């Protein structure tokens, strides 16, 4: 209704687009990028756009498009955004280029652990890491005299206590949405038990006591979760937290900032970030990275310009301006309390997500098959056996297991 504010906003938008001086140089080579669309990518690509001649596609279908678009000659995009697992198809198809020469030329500010190396060659530059870790309501736990939960047994005991005290009906939240999220929860648990997913010759290896233990823990948790857990994704769990409906959840580090967002959250300052609960061997979580790759089907001149632009996009200025958006890998990053959970998980020995072509197949099979166990249609062993069978069919079709 307020015309003035609309006009003001318009004027400010114009002023902002005019002020591309934030970039230290003027980019001359037309460049395009294709990546996922979450907040951190928006921050990075916005910083890159300030140098001019750059357009970013933040596309939720990037997984499907990236392998094809990078295989075209010349590649449709020069810059790609990838994570652990989404780099695999590009790497396997040989459509991304080694970056060693460019790192030597422009990468003085990069930290050593930003360099993703495959067989000694730098293939990607990581910009941030992400991991699921425990978030809990310190006020609720303190009131009931509960210590910070260290293992899932602690979590379950705390949940029982909270429920008994009548504070909350469903104290635990979880990203149990069928598909990728649910499979990721299993991966976390199974990693915590110290299991390996895939054995010699890509034969699956999850149907064992560790797998059953992981499933049983998940089922035990669902007793304390909102019955609609099979449709709850990260955003939903985050909202449950913000509205004070749950007390504990193993949630992504990238969601931590939302807990203290005054505009939405009713629990500002009441959520503590802690290490992911320990399994039998290590924390029940996996560490993910997001980073940038360059296509191999382009001229050296373009590659040079693209890398320079990437360095500008993930530089200290951008990180300082968006400090809480992600757990950045950068010297300028100020890890606050919000990053404590991810850091503690890493300190306790959390492993990286075991990305591989076979793991991609297994993750999908898990995503589709686990719900049958949680809804009670199958017992744990049958569920795992069926998932393995499903995996073998798919892996044979993909050529990963010879017939």
């Amino acid at each position: 209704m307020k015309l003035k504010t609309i006009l003001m906003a318009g004027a400010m938008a114009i002023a902002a687009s005019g002020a591309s001086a934030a970039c230290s140089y003027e980019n001359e080579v037309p460049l395009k990028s294709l990546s996922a669309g979450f907040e951190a990518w928006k921050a990075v690509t916005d910083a890159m756009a300030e140098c001019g001649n750059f357009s970013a596609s933040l596309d939720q279908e990037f997984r499907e498009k990236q392998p094809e678009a990078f295989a075209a000659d010349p590649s449709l995009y020069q810059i790609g955004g990838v994570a652990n697992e989404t780099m695999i198809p590009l790497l396997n198809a040989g459509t991304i280029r080694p970056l060693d020469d460019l790192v030597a030329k422009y990468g003085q500010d990069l930290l050593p652990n930003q360099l993703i190396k495959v067989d000694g060659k730098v293939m990607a530059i990581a910009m941030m890491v992400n991991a699921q870790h425990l978030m809990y309501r310190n006020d609720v736990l303190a009131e009931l005299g509960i210590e910070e939960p260290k293992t899932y047994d602690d979590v379950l005991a705390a949940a029982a206590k909270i429920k008994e005290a009548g504070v909350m009906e469903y104290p635990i939240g979880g990203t149990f949405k069928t598909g990728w999220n649910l499979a990721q929860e299993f991966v976390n648990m199974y990693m915590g038990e110290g299991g390996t997913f895939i054995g010699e010759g890509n034969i699956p290896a999850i149907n064992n006591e560790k797998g059953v233990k992981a499933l049983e823990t998940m089922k035990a948790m669902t007793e304390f979760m909102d019955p609609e857990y099979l449709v709850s994704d990260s955003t939903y769990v985050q909202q449950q937290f913000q509205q004070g409906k749950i007390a504990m959840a193993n949630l992504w580090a990238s969601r931590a900032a939302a807990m203290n967002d005054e505009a939405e959250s009713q629990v500002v300052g009441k959520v503590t970030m802690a290490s992911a609960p320990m399994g039998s061997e290590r924390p029940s979580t996996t560490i993910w990275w997001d980073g940038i790759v360059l296509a191999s089907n382009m001229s050296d001149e373009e590659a040079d310009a693209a890398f320079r632009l990437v360095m500008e996009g993930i530089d200290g200025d951008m990180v300082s301006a968006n400090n809480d958006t992600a757990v950045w890998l950068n010297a300028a990053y100020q890890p606050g309390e919000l990053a404590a959970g991810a850091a503690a998980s890493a300190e306790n020995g959390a492993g990286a997500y075991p990305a591989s072509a076979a793991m991609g197949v297994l993750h999908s099979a898990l995503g589709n098959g686990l719900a049958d166990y949680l809804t009670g249609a199958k017992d744990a062993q049958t569920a795992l056996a069926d998932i393995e069978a499903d995996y073998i069919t798919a892996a044979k079709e993909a050529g990963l297991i010879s017939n």
Partner: protein
Amino acid sequence: MNFRTFAAFVGPSVFMMLLFIAFPLVSVFKQSFYITQPVYEMVEVETCTPGFLTQTCVTEQKSQPKLDEHGEVITQTEYVGLQSYRNVLEPERAWRAITEGNWSVLSTINFWKALRFTLTFTLITLPLVIGFGLGIAVLINNAAGSIRGPVIFISLLPFIITPVIGALSINWLFRGEGILTALLEWWLNRDIALFAQAWTIEILMMFYRVWHVAPFAAVVFYAGLQTVNQDSLESAVIDGATRWQRMKYIVIPHLMPLIIFVSMIHLMDAYRVFEEIVGFSSQAYVISLQWLTFDFLVPDQAGNRSISRASASAMLTMIGIVLLLILPLRRTWRDHKGGH
């Protein structure tokens, strides 16, 4: 009309359908009998990924596709006959489940689970759509002339709304403590979780579909009601026919071609139910045939996709729809021949 003129009229349309529908369809058909896969080799790879302060490097055996001298992945294509169909149908498991009379096992096999839901969904919503459509059309026709316009306008809203948004808005209204769930809880005075078990989700999905499609049926039927022969209605009244008899013997037969038209459209659309599955994220409980095909097609994080199984399941889906359409189509054939 001679053949050349006919071809000139129909040509552009047929060309487009051939290029964009028939041609892909033929390749899908072919793919369902073949498997194309990259040639893998086992290599030892050292991969370094970031921790927080340090890097973790692991060396392990990994499958890697072989590349040829142009840097392209070497693939091999193999004729596998009906293997992909077998992978989709899982006939041995299904047969065992049937002979043992164990329906719950049968309903955990993806294809049969999807088929069960797709058919239930299609066959339950069909009479509801026709019934509600007819009901609304008659009600509108009964209403005073001045309010018909606005009522038709409001009735059309559910039909025109973008399906993705329609499904999302149902989500907002019902999910968790959504406003309508809260209302139901207040009314029934108990805790309700509509997304926590299969049957409530199925009812919601059917409710959404009927809400979305019934307006289309209603408008078509309403248009049909405008052309009902008033004379025969009046003579029926004079003969002492009741309201119900007039409806049954004059109005419904008059609308019959329209009912068949709407049924056919609805059969086709309901049979490829997909948006509801995604919009209600019901995969844990119910899946549909098109969703199954879609799931095979979508690459996983590492870029693998099951093209052959997707093709097979697409072909099976198509056979199903042809079977469903045979009955209404026989009539069209008669009309076509009779009309000239």
